[in-house]
């Protein structure tokens, strides 16, 4: 918590202090606590973001189904109201917990931290935080995640990376979801990939469909590799 404070007095009646404090310092402080907890429990934390209705919950169902024999997965779901998503996941046999934000358009580290004790983290290898469907505000809030994954559905149009650059700049993986609809839509995967790479050249991309299962193998392999890397890093 080192903050440089100037002791110089400004002209006039006011004394100025140059602070340069991060505006979201309170959030980042809690995010670091979460990060440490995840290291202790050996849990890979993924912050899953997207617009509303791009298929996050369906992808969670499909992912859990694929990985159920390989690791323990759990999902924390953020929504403005209702427990519908958590109920949907629980019905599919997935460990899930709802965070109702009560009108707030994004999740903050504090909200995630408050529900962490609903899970037995030592037994969870992979924890997803399904963020509120919104490509704007969630981009600014670190939740202590290892990776940020952004879904971009083909139905949203291929111009999103340049419209919401911060989200794509801060993501590690972009999933182009609902790829089964591509034949019916004026959507160019090439255009999306080109734009997103101009914003973030390190962004990994997988084209995916939870219905036809295109890309699901590749996605699950990516997850398994990241879980393994985290667990190996702990052993070393």
């Amino acid at each position: 918590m080192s903050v440089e404070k100037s002791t110089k007095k400004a002209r006039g009646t006011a004394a100025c202090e140059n602070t340069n404090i991060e505006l979201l310092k309170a959030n980042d402080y809690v995010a670091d606590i979460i990060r440490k907890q995840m290291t202790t429990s050996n849990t890979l934390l993924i912050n899953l973001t997207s617009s509303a209705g791009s298929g996050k919950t369906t992808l969670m169902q499909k992912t859990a189904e694929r990985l159920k024999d390989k690791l323990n997965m759990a999902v924390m779901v953020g929504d403005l109201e209702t427990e519908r998503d958590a109920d949907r996941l629980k019905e599919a046999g997935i460990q899930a917990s709802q965070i109702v934000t009560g009108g707030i358009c994004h999740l903050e580290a504090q909200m995630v931290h408050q529900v962490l004790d609903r899970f037995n983290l030592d037994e969870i290898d992979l924890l997803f935080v399904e963020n509120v469907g919104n490509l704007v505000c969630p981009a600014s809030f670190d939740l202590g995640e290892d990776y940020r994954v952004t879904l971009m559905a083909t139905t949203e149009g291929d111009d999103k990376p340049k419209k919401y650059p911060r989200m794509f700049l801060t993501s590690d993986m972009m999933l182009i979801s609902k790829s089964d609809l591509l034949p019916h839509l004026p959507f160019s995967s090439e255009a999306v990939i080109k734009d997103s790479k101009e914003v973030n050249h390190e962004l990994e991309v997988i084209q995916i469909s939870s219905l036809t299962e295109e890309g699901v193998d590749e996605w699950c392999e990516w997850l398994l590799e990241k879980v393994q890397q985290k667990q190996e890093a702990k052993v070393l």
Partner: protein
Amino acid sequence: MHETSIVNSIINTLEMEFEEEKLNSMKAIHLKVGVLSNVEPRLLQNAYSAFHLSNPKYENVDLHIESTTLKIQCEICDHITDVQNYRFICENCDRPSKNVIQGEEMLIHKIEFEDQ
């Protein structure tokens, strides 16, 4: 709602950093926000005005918001590029870069206090 959380975060952060007595002599808060921070200065000012309705303690404290443009510095050739149209590419050597040196910040840059 985003702006309201940010105003709360600013006040929480200042209350963590400074003694109450000092905060009572606060005259102005200066923020520096980048174009990539998703903070819209006008909306933040409105949220700050709304905040005073429930927290009159800080109603005489001005809020100044400075926006900064987006700049990257190439890791290879060190050239600094003003990013236009969100193309994060060095204008000198044409290589992509994620090394944002300005435009992402959300800082409480400076605080003015009454001279004592």
